[in-house]
C-alpha cells in the first residue's frame, strides 16, 4: 500500500487512519451482527403473536414430553427411561432411541434460568429454543463465510440466512424439533473445519470434533457431515491441494469424531459398522497413504523415489486387491449393502416407494416441486450460480468446500423436501458471496470515479438495466478486462497507487464500470434485497407460522378458530382412566401421549412396521374383525380425525389408502383394489362394499347425516354412500365441536351369549339341543 505522499511524517497518519477505519469497521460489523441476531429471532415470532405460545405439529410434542420428563426427574432417569405409555404392549426405550441434543439443550437452558431465579416454564423454553438457535446459526454463517471470502460476504450471508423461508419453516417459535439446533450445529461444525483447514491449528481441530459431537447428538442428518468432509478431503487430494493442514483438519476429526459418535446411545456401534461411515474410514486410509508418499518423496532423491514407487506398486497392488476383495465380499453379503433404509432412500429415490411404504408415506419425504424452490429460497435461487462462479476466483480449499457443499445439498434437496433445510445455508453462503462481490465491484467503480476522473469511454458497458444481468457481470468482467488491458495500461498505474480497502495481491487489473450504470445497478441490487425481505416476512407470517394444532379460517362472519384437537385430548385426559389405551393412526400418537397423557398403540416414531400394519388392518376391516384386533391389544378408545364437516383436508379418510397399503403389506387379506372402484378412491354411493363397511368409514361418518340431512362431505365434495347405519361393536363417547375428532369406546363383550352365532332359520332346527334361545331374529349376539 504505497502512499502518494513522500514525506515520512505522513506515513504514521496513514497508518492510524487505516487502524481507525479498521476499528470502526469492526464495531460496525459487531452491531450489524447483533441486529441480524435480533432479526432472526423476531421474524420467527409470528406464530406466537398470531396464535399463542404453543408447541406446533406432532414431533415437537414428543420432544416436549421428553424435556418435561428430563426437567422433572433429572438426567440419570432420562438416560435409563423406558417408556411404557407408547407402542403398547411393546414400550419404547427412550434413552437409546432418541437424539438427546435438543432435549438436553433445552433442559440445560431451563435449569440455568431456574437456578438464576428466572422462573420460565419448560414449555416457554421449548417454544423459544428454535428462534434463539437460529440467531446463533446466522452468526455461525457469518463466521463460516468470513473464513471463505471475508467480512462483507460473511455479513451478507448471515443476513440472508436469518430470513430464508426454508429455515424459518422448521424453526418458528413453537417448532421444537431436532432441526432447530441441528442446523446451528451443522454450520458451526463446518466453520470449525474450514478454520482448521485455513490455520492448521490442532486446537480448532479439537473444537471441530466437539462441535461434530453436538451435531451427532442433535440429528440423524449428521451422516451428511461425515460424508461431505471426506469427499472434500478426497477432492483436495485429487486436485493437488494436499497439505499438512489438510491432515491436521481431517485425521483427528475422524478418530475423535467416531469415538464421540459411538458415545451417543442412538448411534452406538453403528458409528463403525454401517456403510454411512465407511467413506470417512476409507478417506482416512487414503490420506495416510498420500501423506506417507509425500514424506518419502521429501526425504529421497528423485531417482531413488522412482525405484521405491516401482517396488511398492508391484508388491502393494497385490495386497491391496486382496484386502479390497475381502471388504467388498463382506459388504455385499448384507442385503442392503450395509446402508440403512433411510439412507438408501436418499441415494435411490425410488427405493422407499418399492420396499418401505412407511417412509414413502411421510409427506416430508416426498420430492419437492419446482415452485417450492422459489418459495423456500426465493431470490437466492439465481444468486447461487453467481456465487459458485465467484468461489472459483480464486479457488481456495475453503471455497472448493462451499462448491462441494452446495452441489451435494442441491441433489439431496431434490430427493426429499425435508432436506431443503440443509440446502438453505449453502444457498445463503454462495449468494452472500455473490452479492458481496457485486457490491464490491460497483462501489469500487463509484469510488474511483467520484474524484472526477473522466470515465473511460472505451470500457465496454455490457450491463443492461435489468437486475438479472447482475449474475452475468461477474462472468463478463473477466472478459472485459482482458479486452481493455491495452487501452488502460496508462491509467492502471495511477489507480493502483490509491489505497484499496480490500485489495488482493492477484488482482492487478482494476474494474471500473461507468458511474451511472454502477449507481443504477447498486440501486437495483438493493431493490432485489428489499424484495427478498418482503417475501421472507410474508412467508414467515402467512405460510409457516401455523401451529397445525389450532386452525383458523376467515369467513364473512369473521375469524373462526378450530381448537378441536386440544378439546379432544383434554376430554380424554379428564374423562378416562389413567391406564386406558387409545388407538389411532400413528400421526396422533405423540400428541396423545403428551397432551392427553394416555397410552397409545402406535406413534410417530414408526419403528415397528408390523404394529402399525396391525392398526391399519383394524381400521380397514369390518367392525367385528376390528373389534377383535383392538380387543387383543387391550384398547379401550379409538380416535378418528374427520374433516368432512368443516373441510379439513388432512383427515383420516384422506390418509386411509396409506392405512390399507401399510396393512396390506403385512396382512395379505387386505387388498387395496378392494377399496377402489375402477381404480378411483371414492366414498359416495359408487364406493365398493368393502369400503362402505370398513371401520374407518363407519367411525368417520356415524350420524354424519344428522348434521345437514344430506351428509355432504366438504372435503371429498360429494354425498356419502351409506348414510344410515348403527354401530354394533363401538359406541360414540365424544365428538368435538366441529366434528374434527371423534372418540369411540369399544363395547365390552357380553357376559352371556344368548344363542349361537347362526342365522335364525338354522337355529329353529336345533332348539332341542340347548336350553338357551336366540333373540327374535337378531343376527348379532353383541347387540
Amino acid at each position, binding site marked *: 500500500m504505497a502512499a502518494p505522499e513522500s514525506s515520512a511524517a505522513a506515513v504514521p497518519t496513514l497508518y492510524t487512519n487505516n487502524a481507525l477505519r479498521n476499528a470502526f469497521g469492526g464495531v460496525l460489523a459487531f452491531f450489524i451482527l447483533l441486529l441480524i441476531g435480533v432479526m432472526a429471532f423476531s421474524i420467527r415470532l409470528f406464530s406466537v403473536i398470531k396464535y399463542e405460545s404453543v408447541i406446533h405439529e406432532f414431533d415437537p410434542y414428543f420432544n416436549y414430553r421428553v424435556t418435561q420428563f428430563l426437567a422433572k426427574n433429572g438426567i440419570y432417569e432420562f438416560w435409563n427411561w423406558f417408556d411404557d405409555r407408547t407402542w403398547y404392549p411393546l414400550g419404547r426405550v427412550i434413552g437409546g432411541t432418541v437424539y438427546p441434543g435438543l432435549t438436553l439443550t433445552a433442559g440445560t437452558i431451563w435449569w440455568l434460568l431456574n437456578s438464576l431465579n428466572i422462573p420460565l416454564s419448560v414449555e416457554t423454553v421449548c417454544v423459544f429454543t428454535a428462534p434463539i438457535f437460529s440467531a446463533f446459526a446466522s452468526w455461525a454463517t457469518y463466521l463460516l463465510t468470513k473464513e471463505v471470502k471475508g467480512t462483507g460476504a460473511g455479513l451478507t450471508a448471515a443476513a440472508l440466512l436469518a430470513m430464508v423461508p426454508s429455515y424459518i419453516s422448521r424453526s418458528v417459535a413453537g417448532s421444537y424439533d431436532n432441526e432447530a439446533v441441528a442446523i446451528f450445529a451443522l454450520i458451526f461444525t463446518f466453520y470449525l473445519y474450514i478454520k482448521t483447514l485455513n490455520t*492448521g*491449528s*490442532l*486446537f480448532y*481441530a*479439537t473444537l471441530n*470434533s*466437539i462441535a461434530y459431537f453436538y451435531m451427532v447428538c442433535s440429528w440423524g442428518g449428521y451422516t451428511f457431515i461425515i460424508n461431505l468432509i471426506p469427499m472434500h478431503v478426497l477432492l483436495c487430494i485429487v486436485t493437488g491441494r494436499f*497439505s*499438512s*493442514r489438510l*491432515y*491436521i483438519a481431517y*485425521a*483427528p476429526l475422524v*478418530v*475423535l469424531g*467416531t*469415538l*464421540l459418535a*459411538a*458415545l451417543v446411545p442412538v448411534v452406538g*456401534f453403528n458409528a*463403525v459398522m454401517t456403510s454411512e461411515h465407511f467413506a470417512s474410514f476409507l478417506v482416512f486410509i487414503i490420506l495416510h497413504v498420500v*501423506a506417507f508418499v509425500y514424506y*518419502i518423496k*521429501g*526425504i*529421497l*532423491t528423485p531417482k*531413488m523415489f522412482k*525405484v*521405491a514407487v516401482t*517396488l511398492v506398486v508391484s508388491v502393494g497392488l497385490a495386497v491391496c486387491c486382496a484386502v479390497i476383495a475381502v471388504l467388498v465380499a463382506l459388504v455385499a453379503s448384507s442385503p442392503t449393502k450395509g446402508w440403512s433404509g433411510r439412507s438408501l432412500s436418499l441415494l435411490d429415490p425410488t427405493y422407499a416407494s418399492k420396499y418401505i411404504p412407511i417412509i414413502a408415506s411421510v409427506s416430508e419425504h416426498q420430492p419437492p416441486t419446482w415452485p417450492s424452490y422459489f418459495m423456500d429460497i426465493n431470490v437466492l435461487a439465481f444468486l447461487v450460480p453467481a456465487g459458485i462462479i465467484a468461489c472459483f476466483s480464486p479457488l481456495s480449499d475453503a471455497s472448493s468446500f462451499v462448491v462441494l457443499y452446495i452441489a451435494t445439498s442441491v441433489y439431496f434437496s431434490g430427493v426429499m423436501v425435508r432436506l431443503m433445510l440443509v440446502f438453505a445455508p449453502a444457498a445463503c453462503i454462495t449468494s452472500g458471496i455473490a452479492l458481496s462481490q457485486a457490491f464490491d465491484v460497483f462501489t469500487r467503480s463509484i469510488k474511483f470515479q467520484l474524484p472526477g476522473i473522466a470515465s473511460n469511454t472505451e470500457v465496454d458497458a455490457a450491463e443492461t438495466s435489468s437486475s438479472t444481468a447482475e449474475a452475468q457481470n461477474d462472468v463478463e468482467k473477466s472478459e472485459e478486462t482482458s479486452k481493455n488491458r491495452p487501452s488502460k495500461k496508462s491509467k492502471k498505474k495511477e489507480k493502483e497507487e490509491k489505497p484499496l480497502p480490500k485489495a488482493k495481491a492477484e488482482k492487478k487489473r482494476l474494474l471500473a464500470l461507468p458511474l451511472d450504470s454502477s449507481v443504477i445497478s447498486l440501486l437495483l441490487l438493493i431493490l432485489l434485497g428489499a424484495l427478498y425481505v418482503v417475501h421472507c416476512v410474508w412467508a414467515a407470517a402467512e405460510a409457516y407460522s401455523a401451529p397445525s394444532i389450532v386452525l383458523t379460517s376467515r369467513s364473512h362472519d369473521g375469524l373462526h378458530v378450530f381448537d378441536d384437537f386440544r378439546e379432544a385430548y383434554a376430554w380424554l385426559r379428564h374423562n378416562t382412566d389413567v391406564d386406558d389405551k387409545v388407538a389411532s393412526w400413528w400421526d396422533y400418537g405423540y400428541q396423545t401421549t403428551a397432551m392427553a397423557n394416555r397410552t397409545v398403540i402406535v406413534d410417530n416414531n414408526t419403528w415397528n412396521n408390523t404394529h402399525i400394519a396391525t392398526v391399519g388392518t383394524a381400521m380397514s376391516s369390518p367392525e367385528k374383525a376390528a373389534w377383535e384386533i383392538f380387543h387383543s391389544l387391550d384398547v379401550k378408545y379409538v380416535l378418528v380425525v374427520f374433516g368432512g364437516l368443516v373441510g379439513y383436508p388432512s383427515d383420516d379418510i384422506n390418509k386411509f389408502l396409506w392405512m390399507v397399503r401399510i396393512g396390506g403389506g403385512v396382512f395379505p387379506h387386505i387388498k387395496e383394489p378392494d377399496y377402489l372402484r375402477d381404480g378411483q378412491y371414492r366414498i359416495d354411493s359408487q364406493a365398493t362394499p368393502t369400503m362402505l363397511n370398513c371401520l374407518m368409514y363407519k367411525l368417520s361418518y356415524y350420524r354424519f347425516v344428522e348434521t345437514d340431512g344430506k351428509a355432504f362431505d366438504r372435503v371429498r365434495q360429494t354425498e356419502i354412500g351409506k348414510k344410515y347405519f348403527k354401530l354394533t361393536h363401538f359406541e360414540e363417547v365424544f365428538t368435538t365441536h366441529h366434528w374434527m375428532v371423534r372418540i369411540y369406546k369399544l363395547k365390552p363383550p357380553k357376559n352371556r351369549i344368548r344363542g349361537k352365532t347362526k342365522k335364525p332359520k338354522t337355529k329353529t332346527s336345533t332348539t332341542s339341543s340347548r336350553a338357551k334361545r336366540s333373540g327374535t331374529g337378531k343376527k348379532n349376539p353383541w347387540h
Partner: protein
Amino acid sequence: MAREKSSKDNAQALFHSLRSAYAATPVNLKIIDLYVGFAVFTALIQVVYMASVGSFPFNSFLSGVLSCVGTAVLAVCLRIQVNKENKEFKDLPPERAFADFVLCNLVLHLVIMNFLG
C-alpha cells in the same frame, strides 16, 4: 538374471538411502516417531488379541484401538507442526503446538475413559 540382480541392487540402494535420509532427522522428531510406532504397535497387539479371543465387549475393544490410533494421529500432527522444515508452520512456536497436543489428548482420553465401560 541381470534384471533380478539390478532390482535387488535397487532395493538395497533404496533401503540405504532411506536409512541415511532418516538418520538426518533431528532427535526430537525421532522421539515422536518412536512414540507413534509404539502406539501403532499397541493397536496391532489389541487387534490380534481381539481376533483370538472374540470382540465382546465391543466398546472396550473399540475404545482401546481408537485410543492408540488417536494418540498416533495426534503425535503425527505434533510432528508436522514442530518440524522446522515445514514452511507453513514456521511462525508457530513449538510450545503452542505442544499445548494443543496436550489439550487434544486430554479430550481424547476423557472420551476413551467414558467409552471404555
